[in-house]
């Protein structure tokens, strides 16, 4: 059934395109050559210097009510502990690949996700991960899922996401950000502000199914 369907659909498209007298002149070269001619005059590279880019990014995050913590690599564990204490939480989920030095030594129980079954995975209400790149223009952080940044469920089920990012991971435009994604066939999630809906009377409500809180630890 589906083989027939495949043939019919592709064949119909070819015949329909051939029936359009205008098309012949339009597709006289290979898809690659034609693709290369697509005009791209929109902004693809940065216009701001890096300090301005960072300021823009911080602004966007504050706009989403995210918390920003500035520290250095040695201060990550303390920053995580502070965020946990403020949120009144003690159980922290971390992907397998998160460095030991990032983890608080006291008052926090750390649960590493070595292929955890659903129930223990769903229990922790806070998760700690790094990210690949962040976009200043839209306040977006991008996760390439795997051992380092966790599988998708790990950053989806907890209500509070603590994300560690280096200043040089912040770029101005989405075009620059996509260039930093090296494993393009890994699952990828882009996150801009907390889960939200405006479905009821266009009133924006924070937090439907995804995490409601984001703490960005900036190095």
């Amino acid at each position, binding site marked *: *059934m*589906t083989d027939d*369907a*495949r043939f*019919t*659909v*592709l064949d119909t*498209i070819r015949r*329909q*395109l051939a*029936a*359009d007298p*205008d*098309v012949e002149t339009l*597709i006289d070269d290979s*898809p690659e050559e*034609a*693709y290369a001619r*697509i*005009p*791209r*005059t*929109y*902004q693809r590279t940065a216009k701001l210097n890096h300090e301005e880019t960072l300021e823009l990014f911080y602004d966007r995050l504050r706009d989403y009510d995210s918390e920003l913590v500035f520290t250095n690599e040695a201060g990550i564990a303390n920053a995580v502990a502070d965020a946990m204490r403020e949120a009144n939480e003690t159980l922290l989920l971390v992907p397998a690949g998160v460095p030991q030095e990032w983890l608080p030594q006291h008052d926090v129980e750390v649960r590493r996700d070595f292929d955890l079954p*659903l129930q223990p995975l769903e229990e922790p209400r806070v998760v700690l991960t790094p990210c690949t790149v962040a*976009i200043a223009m*839209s306040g*977006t952080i991008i996760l390439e*899922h*795997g051992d380092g940044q966790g*599988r*998708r*469920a790990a950053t*989806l089920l907890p209500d509070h996401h603590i994300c560690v990012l280096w200043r040089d991971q912040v770029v101005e435009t*989405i*075009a620059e950000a*996509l260039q930093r994604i090296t494993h*393009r*066939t890994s*699952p*990828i*999630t*882009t996150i*801009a*502000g*907390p*889960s*939200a*809906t*405006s*479905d*009821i*009377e*266009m*009133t924006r*409500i924070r*937090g*439907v*199914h*995804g995490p409601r809180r984001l703490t960005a630890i900036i190095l």
Partner: protein
Amino acid sequence: MTVRVGHTAEKPAFPILAHELLQDDQTRRNVRHATNVIRNKRALRVEEMPDWQDLRTTAHAIKTHTLLHLPHYLEEFERNCIRAGGQVHWARDADEANTIAIQLIQQAAARQSGVKGHAQPSDRPSSPYPSVPAHAEVIKVKTMTSDEIGMNHALEQRGITPWETDLADMIVQMGKDEPSHIVVPALHKNRHQVRELFLQNMGLTELGTEAEDLTGAARHYLRKKFLEVGIGISGANFAIAETGSVCVVESEGNGRMCVTMPKTLITLIGIEKVIPKFDDLEVFLQLLPRSATGERMNPYNSIWTGVTHGDGPQEFHVILLDNGRTRMMANVRERETLNCIRCGACLNQCPVYRETGGHAYGSIYSGPIGAILSPQLNGMKYSRSLPYASSLCGACYEVCPVKINIPETLIHLRGKIVEQDQNTLAGKLSQESMGMKMAAHLFEHPKQYEAAQRLARTGQGLFEKDGKLVNLPGMAAGWTQYRDLRALPKQSFREWWKRSRTNRGDGSNWSGND
């Protein structure tokens, strides 16, 4: 082939539905409020983009290019999706897509419940499908394409319960309602109406009236489903040929849940959703959220490729759907309709949609884009009143992020409808057709044209009142019912021209040769 687009085959024409809906003050208030809010947010977010027009131009060029090479890109997508562990199915129409989905669901449900699934349908000729566990369920993330093919109804008929998880889609499903907007399907309902539905359907005795209360109830109600239901169904905003990846754009997180938590995922994709390269996302992920909801970026985009070991569904199926799309490939005006990325900006901008709301269009695709998409998918068989449901003001074209020239397409489709009508006997003999033919004849024959003018000048006396024509008979009554028509003047331009030339005596007393 049985192309189906929602319930368009059974729906009355636009003027009839619109007339009913215009009486519904509550709905009109809700629609007006919602469209105003999104319009203003969109305007704000577009204004801050100095390169907005460049982005539109590129998006149009990418879509045009992709459609001209569609077989190439579909095959590339298929190849890469399969290489990454996905399975690709093709469906010519709604029934075929639903049949594939039902079969996949039944096999997955049987496997997941420990019942031995039969991979070969031919095992049991009396029942083509494997034994189904008592309660086969699926969780769904908003997909207009599944509404297009009437998937929920088809699943229910086979004893499969579909759970819509997008807040608005859940409201529509609970109310046994139809979506009235592409992006915000329940915008015709206010929070009091939503509260009533939730109380009835969620088994609650108490529930607040604020939007927060309602959203909280939905979060609680659906959490269990996300964790327990083993099969997910999604649509796709983009299918990337270069990598075989699929991208779903959303806000609530229900999309992430549906594409991550189930063991089996089935993704329904219209064949026009394919884009050539991963980098093309840099264009569309800027245009879509700003146009759709007035956000710089929507909260979540999920991009995944086939199956990833240890992360998300371990069984992934793509259904590539035609359902009338290939019919639109032979003409540039019609093909361009397939550029649509379903942002809904044209609905919010349209002076007709803003008065009537989406239900007047009788199609899940409403507003200006619905007025060109619905009849074309239907092969101009249904939704034929929709190309006329527009004042051709052009606001839709101006806001369209992929530059679909909707007004030109509306006119093109009106022409097609007239042409089709003229091919039937009733159509040939209709007043409009006869009148147009007579007009065509008169315009070609100046002497007869002048004679007709003189005749009309004599005849109009019966209907003339203070220099205006009122209550014309026959088909012209439709015009004069709401508007006055200025009476023909004593002297026509041609008569004046002839006379003034003669009086000046330059001898150039032109007259056409008949």
